[in-house]
Every structure is written in structure tokens, then in C-alpha cells.
């Protein structure tokens, strides 16, 4: 197991390093001069030149990459030239919105999907199963931003139960903050729940067709016990895979939902920074997200190995 973990860690680090090079290189291709963008179309050439110098944009490419990487290694994410503050501070501010949002959405989606998956699998072919699967199909097809706007019209404008968007900050108290994350979390969770419940259902059905299930049934165990004790544990591997992917998606892929609800999260930070060519912010945040995705996958890998001893030996 130790060998397995070390080997995996090496792969994680290598992936991260390659990702950092790709991200850095791609951002250099983006056309446009950040200094000109900041100063606008009336700026004189010497003002733009002075700003370029101030922002350190004149340093050679290689030097800038080395500076950035060596900073990252000691936890310094660089300096945002549009916000005039450390990127680390920006990330710290934004993660207090994005992380709770992702966690709430993930919890909601899991709480909905797993029971629905189990319930429909155990009633395969019945009218309940068919209609539940039809609903999940719609859930997958509906774009989450459209669903978000619908939620806003019903719960914020008509019923006025929650704000239409924005985030008041955790310092205003737990409830006002949670209230403003409720609609975005639901909008994010439902399409995910639709996918997850289908995966749970089919994984469970597949397991139910295995020989050992038939054996369990043959030795006289009641259907319920077979489902909960034998099938469910084995069906969990594909479910875990999807959960890992979904968490990564929820953390990184909320750009659209954060825009619809104008939440100050990481997705919106990336969006704004790309528009302003604030490359230091973009590259640092993207590397951070890549790192979190890789790390989640690493955890999922470990969970597999824990569940299935054969994987440990293969590495």
C-alpha cells in the first residue's frame, strides 16, 4: 500500500508540473496588452510603457515562469495587477463562497440521488421507476443556468423568500449567508443528482445480476438484505467515481451559476480576470483548481485500492 501511495504521489506531482507549463504557455498566447487594457484607448504611449514596466511585463518569459513557480512552492500565488492585492488573498476570499457552495450542492445531490437510485433499482420496470427515470432524463437535459433563472423568478421575485443573488458575507451571520447560497446550490445540485441517481441505479442493477447475489438469494436471504448488505457496497465504486468528478466540476465549473447569481466565487474571479487579462490571477487560480481536481482523483484512487485489494498490487 505504501508503495502504491508513493507511486501515485509522483504521478500527481508530475501532472501538476506539466499542467502549470501548459497553463502558463496558453496564457502567453492570449493576445492583448494588459497595460493598454487597463489604461484604455485615450492613454498616451509613455503612460502605457510606464505601467508595463511597473507590472513587470517586460521580463523575459522564462524568468516570469520561474518567478511564478518558485513563488507557488512557498505558497505565494503572486500579485494581481488589476486588484492591486496578493492573489492568495483573493483566493482566500473567494473560496469561502465556492467551497461551501460546492459542498452544499454535493450534499444535496447525494441526498437526493442515492435514495432515488436505490428505490428505482429495487422497483425496476414499475411505473415509479419509469417515471423517475424520465424525470432524471429531463434533469440532465435542462441547463442549470436556465433552471437557476426559473428558481429566481419563483422563490426570489414572486415569493420573496430568498435574495435573487449576491452574497452578504459570512460575517453577517450563518443564516443570511446560507440563504443566499440556497438557490445556486439547488440549481447546481439537481442536474448532478439526475446523473448520479441514474448511475446509482444502473450500478446497482448490474451488481444484482452477479453470481454472488444469486447465491445469496439462493441461500434464502430476503431481497432487502441482499440489496443493502451485498449489492450496495459493491455498487459503490462507480458511484464514488462520479462523485469525485462531480465535486471537481462543482468547484471549478460554477462560472455560469456564479454569474447568474452574481456570487463572488472562484469561477467569477477567473471570468473577470480573463476579461481584464489579469494573467497572474488566472494562472494561479487555474493551477489551484487543477491541483484540487488531481487531489480528489487521487483520493478516489485510494478509495478504490482500499475497496479492491487487486488494484493495490497493480499500482
Amino acid at each position, binding site marked *: 500500500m505504501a508503495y502504491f501511495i508513493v507511486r501515485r504521489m509522483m504521478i500527481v506531482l508530475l501532472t501538476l508540473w506539466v499542467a502549470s507549463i501548459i497553463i502558463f504557455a496558453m496564457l502567453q498566447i492570449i*493576445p492583448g496588452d494588459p497595460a493598454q487594457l*487597463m489604461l*484604455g484607448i485615450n492613454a498616451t504611449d509613455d503612460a502605457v510603457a510606464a505601467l508595463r514596466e511597473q507590472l513587470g511585463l517586460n521580463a523575459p518569459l522564462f524568468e516570469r515562469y520561474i518567478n511564478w513557480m518558485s513563488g507557488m512552492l512557498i505558497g505565494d500565488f503572486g500579485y494581481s495587477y488589476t486588484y492591486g492585492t496578493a492573489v492568495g488573498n483573493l483566493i482566500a476570499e473567494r473560496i469561502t463562497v465556492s467551497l461551501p457552495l460546492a459542498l452544499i450542492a454535493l450534499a444535496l445531490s447525494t441526498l437526493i440521488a442515492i435514495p432515488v437510485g436505490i428505490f428505482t433499482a429495487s422497483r425496476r420496470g414499475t411505473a415509479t421507476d419509469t417515471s423517475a427515470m424520465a424525470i432524471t432524463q429531463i434533469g440532465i437535459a435542462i441547463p442549470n443556468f436556465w433552471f437557476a433563472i426559473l428558481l*429566481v423568478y419563483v422563490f426570489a421575485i414572486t415569493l*420573496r423568500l430568498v435574495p435573487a*443573488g449576491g452574497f452578504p458575507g459570512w460575517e453577517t451571520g450563518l443564516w443570511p449567508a446560507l440563504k443566499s447560497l440556497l438557490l445556486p446550490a439547488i440549481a447546481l445540485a439537481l442536474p448532478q443528482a439526475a446523473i448520479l441517481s441514474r448511475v446509482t441505479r444502473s450500478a446497482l442493477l448490474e451488481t444484482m445480476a452477479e453470481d454472488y447475489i444469486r447465491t445469496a438469494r439462493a441461500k434464502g436471504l430476503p431481497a432487502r438484505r441482499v440489496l443493502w448488505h451485498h449489492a450496495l457496497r459493491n455498487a459503490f465504486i462507480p458511484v464514488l467515481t462520479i462523485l469525485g468528478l462531480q465535486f471537481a466540476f462543482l468547484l471549478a465549473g460554477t462560472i455560469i451559476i456564479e454569474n447568474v447569481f452574481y456570487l463572488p466565487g472562484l469561477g467569477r474571479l477567473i471570468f*473577470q480576470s480573463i476579461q481584464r487579462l489579469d494573467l497572474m490571477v488566472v494562472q494561479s487560480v487555474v493551477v489551484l483548481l487543477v491541483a484540487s481536481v488531481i487531489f480528489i482523483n487521487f483520493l478516489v484512487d485510494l478509495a478504490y485500492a482500499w475497496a479492491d485489494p487487486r488494484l493495490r498490487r497493480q499500482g
Partner: protein
Amino acid sequence: MTIRPIILGGLAAILFSSSALAARMDLTIGMVLEPPGLDPTAEAAAAVDEVVYANVFEGLTRIGPEGAVKPALAKNWTISDDGLTYTFELREGAKFHDGTSFDASDVVFSLDRARAEDSTNAQKALFSAIEKVEATGDTTVVVTLSEPSGAFLYNMGWGDAVIVAPESADTNKENPVGTGPFKLDNWQRGSAITLTRNADYWGDQAKLDTVTFRFIPDPAAATAALLAGDVQAFPNLPAPEAIAQFEADPRFTVVIGSTEGETILSTNNKKPPFDDVNVRRAMAHAIDRQAIIDGAMFGLGTPIGTHFAPHNPAYVELSETYEFNPEKAKALLAEAGFEGGIKATLKLPPPSYARRGGEIIASQLRDVGIDLEIIPLEWGQWLEQVFKGKDFDLTIVSHTEPNDIDIYARDDYYFQYENPDFKALIDKLNVTADEEERFALYRQAQQIITDDAVNVYLFQLAKNGVWDAKLNGLWENSPVQANDVTGVSWSE
């Protein structure tokens, strides 16, 4: 079933407490873009001025709601007969938000900083006429110009010319320290900026305790935020499609004003075939402005025929100089030797006036034989390719700087217009201080660029103001980029 009443009761309590809290000394204003920093002397983004202008920072002069120059930190001034020496008498008792006092040395510092060699002021040209700035007393500043400048007092009213203190100038970007009636309370990056009333303000106290600017980029979200009451004013709503809905709703006031944004089909005057005035005139005849305003802007916008704001007293109505007439356009093209048609590109920056307007313009020009390939660009690309590189045939852009007809006199400006007569006119304008004479020169300038059909002048961008019907004092037009809330209050 006792749970339900409890939940409902709880919800009602939350609802009532939040509406009770809103005993109106506060205001939340919606804006599309978040300012990158809060120092108006350090960057061009309009969003900076839209938060801090007149609210947090003040200059020697300021521009009022009608576009006129008014005293601000200078309570009055005298101008020498040769127009070269301006003596400003400053306010006494004005203080910066950090408690340091405002005096003549701050003015000297601010102006010298803005025009210094290594200055990164986005509008450095505003200060180019200044030769020296001297404090001749605690409250007297003498500015000497190298040549007369008719627009000097106006220039000093721009957000880029506000007065800052040496102690705080370098940190204004994050923590703005001005002399205005509001000071920064909190900036939740990516979300909102809150200003609170400055109790030590030298002039009339603001009528609101707190003003929050909330940043909502999505048009549907902006509409929802107004409807839900999360924001009470959107001085320029990004959703023209929702204006009719708000007009029908008695809870809201809709005020369609004018901005300084002349939206033009900018034309590369040095690139064949657009170097031919007949081709440019043909384009002007081929375009139906009202159709563009209706189709791209939901009917909101004023057709223009020159590069000047219709609300300006010196404006000349020239929008019918080249009436919509495709046959005439074809005839002009044939005269210029392009019966066979023209192929060209149309590079479009991201705003919807450009992207939606571009589609309509391309189809109107196709009707007269000008075939356009549409190329959408991001702002960074647009600045690089079109504005700096001058690598374009046609583009659509809104020039939002106030009173900027002088760009037609600039050497090497991106649309590459060169006319010595026009340059001479602007030179004369720069040294003319008398208002009537200046207006006459502005009128001549408008006529020249329209005769030369430098660009196709489409429409003045509208300012789609929507706010709570009980709110008073917000500006109808935006003669400068500002959301001046110093005079805003709630009626009972």
C-alpha cells in the same frame, strides 16, 4: 401539522424584519462591471468613476448633471487675460477621509503626479497644457499653462484629475482616501462596494447613510435583482429588453437618458477602398440607423450624424445629411468604380451594441454590394489589432469619453483620418476660452467630419435608468461616467 405554522411564522418574521430594517437611509445600486481598483487617477475603466466620482473623490472642478463645469475643491478661480494663468481659491476646512487636511500642497502634488514622466494616468493628455503648478498660500494655487487651453477647467473636472493626498496616493487603488461626502466602508471583491457618509464633509451632508454598489453582469440577473428589491436602482440597466416591463410597473421609474457614447461604424480611412470618400458616403446612405436602434438596442438610442452628443448645447443635427437610400449608395459606389461590389471585414468587440448591430449593418451593406466578413474579438484583441495595429477595415465601437471630437485631429489615431483644416480648427479651439466662440468652432468641426463621412455615425448610446419610484436625485444623463449619489434621497 404544527410544524408548518412555525415555519411560516419564522419565514414571516424574516421577511418583516428585513423590510423593517430597510428604513430608507440606505441604497443599493446595481452596476454591470466591477471596478478593478478604486483609484480614478490610475486606470481608465469607467466603473472606477462610476463608484468614486463626486462620491469619494473630488477635483478642483466637477462636471454637473447637465455637463456644465461647477466649482468643487476650488471655490472660485480667476483667469489671466492671456488665458495662461489660472488662480484657484480653494475650500477651507476640507479634509481627507484619513483626517489629514486638504490644502494647496495636495493640489500641487496631485497635478504634478498626474503629468510626471512616469505617470500612469490614463488621460495624461488632460494635463499636457500645464507648465507649472505653484502653491502661493495655504488655499491658493496658481496653474501656469504653456498655451491657452479652452477646455482646461472642464479637464480638471474629469475623474482622472481628482485631488489625492501624498500620504495615501499609492494605496488609493485598494483603499481610496478622498475628500468627498462618502468614504469607503467595505469592498467585498467580486460582489459589492459599500460607502458610508463622511460626517466631516466640508459641504452639504449626503442624505443617505450608506450606499452599496452591487455588481451584476448578467442581464437576466440584473432584472431579477430589481424586481426582487435586492437593488433599488440600476442607473444603466444592461437589459434593454426588460425596459417595457419596468415602464408598466408603477413601483419603478424608468428614465431613458443619454450617455457620451457615440456609437460609430469606425472606418479605416487609409485602407482602400475606404480611403475613397464616395465609398464612405455610400456606406452612410446604405445604413438605416433606426433599424439598427430598433433591432440591436430595442429602440433605445438617438440617431446621430456626427461625433457629438445630442444633449450637448453645441450639437448640430446632421443625422439626415446622408439619408437612408440604398439606390443612391449603389450609384455612389458605381461612381467610385465599385459596381462589382466590395469585400471587407467587420471586427466586432464584445458589447451587444457591436455584436447585434454588426449583424444588421452587415446585412444592410450587403444589399448595396458591400460584403462583410464578421470577426468577433475580445477587448484585448480589439485593442491590439484594431486600435493599436490599425489592422481593420470596419469596426463598431462606442466612444464614451466626453467631448472627444478632438480625436479626429490626432496623428496616427486608429481610424486614420487626416485633414489639415480640421487640425487647424481644433488647434484654434484649444486656445479659445469664450464659450460662444467654442460652440461655433465645435459646430464647424462636426460639419467637417460629417462632410468627409469619416465614419458612419450610428446612434448615441442610451442610459437606461431604472430605479425605485420613491428614489429622487439620480442623474438622467451621464455627461461624465459617474453615479453621483451625493444628492440622492428617498421620499416618504
